[in-house]
């Protein structure tokens, strides 16, 4: 479904993505994990066409992507963002946020589609004409997911969708995302700094450091801790919580 081959990206002079390659099968769930500055979000931004200084091949649903994205691309690929407070327009009602894509793509009967989209993410109709500041973090993230689904995309790009939420709310949103993937046959690329979240949500995981994929692992490998690259091992040990002894062995990778 998604093929990325030797993707290189530059921001001005510095080279932020170096020869990144991976494939994601139909209805697959691929995880990109790494610390800040590892370039994991840049991969998503390049796919959606926000980055213009890149090189390499990106093929979505058997279509090669050029420098610009066309309207058809937006029907196939949508994105959910990290910060629930920043992803919804503060002056638009939820109804306008959800019906705008329907009008832009002229899909018609936006009322029915809005109600259906809200139901899909577990929100009832009373939320429809509220403003984002009247909703909690978790509810806003559900609206963001509903907005991404309303165009019936094939692929969802998830940029740390739950890292700004409380643990109990995170569990609800992660369960919702898993259910949607099962029921709608969606394909995910999920970006996160939290190894446990990625291991839970994704079958196939890439560990990134300083713009490069240093290791590929399956969820099973991650569970058993069979990791080769020293950086991924360090990340794995760090995810286990605070242990004074192992910290002195940490290396700064810069």
């Amino acid at each position, binding site marked *: 479904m998604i093929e990325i081959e030797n993707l290189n990206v530059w921001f001005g002079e510095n080279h932020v993505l170096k020869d990144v390659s991976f494939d994601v099968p139909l209805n697959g769930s691929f995880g990109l994990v790494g*610390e*800040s500055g590892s370039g994991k979000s840049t991969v998503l931004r390049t796919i959606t066409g926000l980055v213009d200084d890149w090189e390499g091949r990106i093929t979505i649903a058997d279509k090669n992507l050029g420098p610009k994205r066309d309207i058809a691309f937006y029907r196939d690929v949508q994105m959910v963002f990290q910060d629930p407070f920043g992803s919804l327009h503060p002056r638009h009602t939820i109804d306008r946020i959800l019906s705008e894509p329907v009008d832009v793509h002229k899909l018609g009967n936006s009322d029915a589609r809005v109600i259906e989209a809200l139901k899909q993410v577990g929100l009832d109709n009373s939320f429809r004409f509220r403003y984002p500041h009247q909703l909690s973090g978790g509810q806003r993230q559900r609206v963001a997911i509903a907005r991404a689904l309303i165009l019936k995309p094939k692929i969802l790009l998830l940029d740390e969708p739950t890292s700004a939420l*409380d*643990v*109990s709310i*995170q*569990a*609800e949103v*992660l*369960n919702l995302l*898993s*259910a949607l993937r099962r029921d709608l046959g969606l394909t995910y690329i999920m970006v996160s*700094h*939290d*190894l*446990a*979240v990625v*291991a*839970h*949500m994704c*079958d196939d995981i890439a560990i990134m450091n300083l713009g490069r994929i240093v290791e590929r692992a399956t*969820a*099973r490998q*991650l*569970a*058993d801790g069979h990791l080769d690259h020293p950086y991924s091992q*360090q*990340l794995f040990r*760090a*995810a286990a*919580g*605070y*242990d*004074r002894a192992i*910290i*002195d062995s*940490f290396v700064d990778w810069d």
Partner: protein
Amino acid sequence: MTQDLILSVRNLHVGFNTAKGAIEAVRGVSFDLGRERLGIVGESGSGKSQTGRAILGLTAANGHIRADRLQFHDTDLRNLSPRDWRKVRGARISMIMQDPKYSLNPVMTVGDQIIEAYREHFKVNNREAKRRAIEMLESVKIRDPELVFKSYPHEVSGGMGQRVMIAMMLIPEPELIIADEPTSALDVTVQLQVMAILDDLVRERGMALIFISHDLHLVSSFCDRVLVMYQGRVVEEIAASNLDQAQHPYTRGLLNCLPKMDGNHADLPVLARDAAWETQDLT
């Protein structure tokens, strides 16, 4: 490790009157603290940060604090004059905030800010204060203290900024440190490195520590005892070592709704919130 009692809190209430009426952030919190490490855990809105701020009398202007007892050694913290507070803050109790990007003064060099913290309580000349500051920067494992001393907050990384924060807050040698989500803004590995520094310093100097966080695992692997807070109240107090035998449904709910790396993709157990938790007394 709780020989001498450092801090005693009984029935602490913190309330705010906002445009939408009065809200109670902390509703009757009590605990004692010896020369040990106490973790306070809770989700957003649980009142954990407000508890920490109330101890130092730093609640916002529209807030008010009420407690049956708020005792630090022999000092009653409830109605100190601004002059008395200045003798306590920094010198005897200090606090480490969450994000150095905001908690350091952007137009003053790191060195000046550390010297200011030291000279507030120790009457020394500038040269001596600078020597102490450099020494302190070395003790928080900063490789090039002279360079960091002269640089501005925006020129240092997140991890480095938090090391500066620790150095600044520990230089007047306080007895109690309140760390309010000290590492939540950092990456995982940097977070652990900073906590290791805090760990060593607190142990070497025999200080008491209150560690406030939303991360139950992190707190339980770092502290001796843990208070779990929900909607302004302490719902459970438990030794960090036997966290897995937690009684209260909220604590257990928090523990098992965390995604684990066991490879199974089954749905996570969701926390069913029970209104009774808000009123039930500590069992």
